[in-house]
């Protein structure tokens, strides 16, 4: 057997080969995928590896020397009162935002779904906060809730109560941020629920009516709610991810003062204000672990939930 035979397989010789046309196809595929693959490497894979590396060291940006310290950063995090407070704050925030953000959105969606002519108007009204730049709107909220200048406290005073300084009273800070969070996420969830409601076949409601579900509440419980199950799960998970990533309102309204740090804000402070890179990397990994649990679930369901 000669090299020539291998290089030029003559026609009709029954030898399996990888034809040139097929190689050309592969080359095309690789060329098309290459830019994205390289970016994926540069902006996802390498950074994640570096992040993991950082978390095991006491690296400080600009520091002269760096030591490997194993899992000390993680141990430190669980003893760090700031981190523990940030975690508690974030959980409290989520515990308020998730049920209210989902429940109210469902209620609004059910009401909007029944409207025919006025539906576009209600959609706009409730969806507007989703599109608006949250930083700017947080500034507006700050003014709205101002103890002496804001209309909210004016209303409270008019009812005969003492004005409340929502953004300076430690026990009220997180709930206040949560209300703004609900305000922001409501329209988004409403649209997801509306899509879910549209997907319920009309026949089912009619069948339920024939089966004796006369009361709208009966019909809701026998048809709508069970059929909305997947949508609801999706909305809950999506809202949870949004809630755990709360940042803008903290940055504008409290700056983490008076013990109002949230997870992401604490992370921002450690990593970018104090340049505690190694420690912040460990916090980031903890944050990522929390988000991953939710977002893996969400991504697996994304396939079915892509709306146009």
């Amino acid at each position: 057997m000669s090299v020539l035979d291998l290089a030029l397989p003559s026609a009709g010789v029954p030898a399996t080969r990888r034809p040139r046309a097929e190689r050309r196809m592969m080359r095309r595929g690789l060329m098309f995928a290459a830019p994205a693959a390289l970016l994926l490497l540069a902006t996802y894979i390498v950074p994640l590896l570096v992040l993991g590396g950082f978390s095991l060291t006491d690296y400080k940006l600009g520091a002269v020397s760096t030591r490997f310290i194993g899992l000390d950063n993680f141990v430190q995090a669980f003893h760090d009162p700031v981190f523990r407070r940030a975690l508690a704050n974030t959980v409290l925030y989520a515990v308020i935002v998730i049920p209210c953000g989902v429940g109210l959105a469902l209620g609004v969606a059910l009401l909007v779904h029944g409207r025919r002519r006025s539906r576009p108007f209600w959609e706009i009204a409730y969806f507007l906060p989703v599109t608006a730049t949250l930083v700017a709107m947080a500034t507006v909220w700050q003014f709205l809730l101002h103890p002496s200048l804001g209309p909210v406290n004016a209303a409270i005073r008019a009812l005969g109560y003492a004005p409340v300084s929502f953004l300076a009273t430690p026990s009220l800070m997180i709930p206040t941020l949560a209300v703004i969070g609900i305000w922001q996420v409501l329209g988004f969830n409403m649209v997801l629920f509306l899509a879910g409601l549209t997907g319920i076949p009309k026949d089912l409601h009619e069948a339920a009516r024939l089966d004796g579900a006369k009361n709208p509440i009966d019909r809701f419980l026998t048809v709508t709610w069970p059929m909305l199950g997947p949508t609801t799960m999706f909305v809950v998970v999506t809202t949870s991810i949004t809630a755990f990533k709360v940042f803008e309102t903290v940055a504008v309204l409290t700056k983490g003062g008076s013990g109002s740090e949230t997870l992401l804000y604490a992370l921002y402070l450690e990593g970018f204000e104090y340049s505690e890179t190694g420690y912040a990397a460990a916090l980031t990994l903890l944050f990522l672990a929390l988000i991953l649990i939710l977002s893996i679930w969400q991504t697996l369901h994304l396939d079915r939930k892509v709306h146009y």
Partner: protein
Amino acid sequence: MVAALRRLLPHLLPHLLPHAALALGAGVMLLPFYWMVLTSIRPPAEIFNVSLWPIPESFAGLANYARAASQAPMARFMLNGVIVCAGILVVQVLTAVPAAYALAKLKFPGRRLLLTLVIAALCVPIQALALPLFVGLAKAQLLNTYFAQMAPFFLSVFAIFLFRQSFRSYPDEVIEAARLDGFTEMEICWGLVMRGSLPALAAFSVFSIVAHWNDLYWPMIVVSDTALAPPPLGMLLFSDAESGADYGALMAGAAIVTAPMVLCFLIARRHFIAGITMTGVK
């Protein structure tokens, strides 16, 4: 009269009640927008006026907006926002479309691996990558540049995922007919397949632009130069600097920053809702 009303009420109530409830909720939802616009046209002297009456005693809109524009480089912020959003979107589409086409319609070694990585990357939020990306950009002396603001978002795994879903339904036979007709693979990818997925492109563009116009986290990390700040960061710097009580100018600034997305939303409501909600990820 009362009797008539009592007879009518059971019929009217089911119609009125939903509207009343929706109107009450909408009032709360829209209150901040209303207050923002109202304050932005009130003179500073009316700062203690907490009434919601829409007509100010004297119209100071021009003065407030002028002050906002002079105290902070609002136009510059907007321009920065346009540059950053456009730059990100263009690179995202240029890299994601060929990759999505390859994943949907071509065979090449490593295809499964790439797809798996793309789907895995969907689960990773930018906030988790910010730290190493920041260190890398700092080492490369690239902080405070447009590039630093855009680079982490050049690859949109979500775009790849979305376009791949959309491209997969493009008929293979048309692609084969095109190959027989002598189309280059690039022409097939952009001229035929992408062309057949314009709704997906529109939805993704809205998603991308809204997400990056409104993003604060990343600009806050890599930009300290006011001249390069995008609108949210500019707004933050403006409101931090504005420690006095010039709420008129502050609200005018907020209105300027918020206006582009809100106006786009009002114009293209359907596309907007599709674009923002198709993901579930903001």
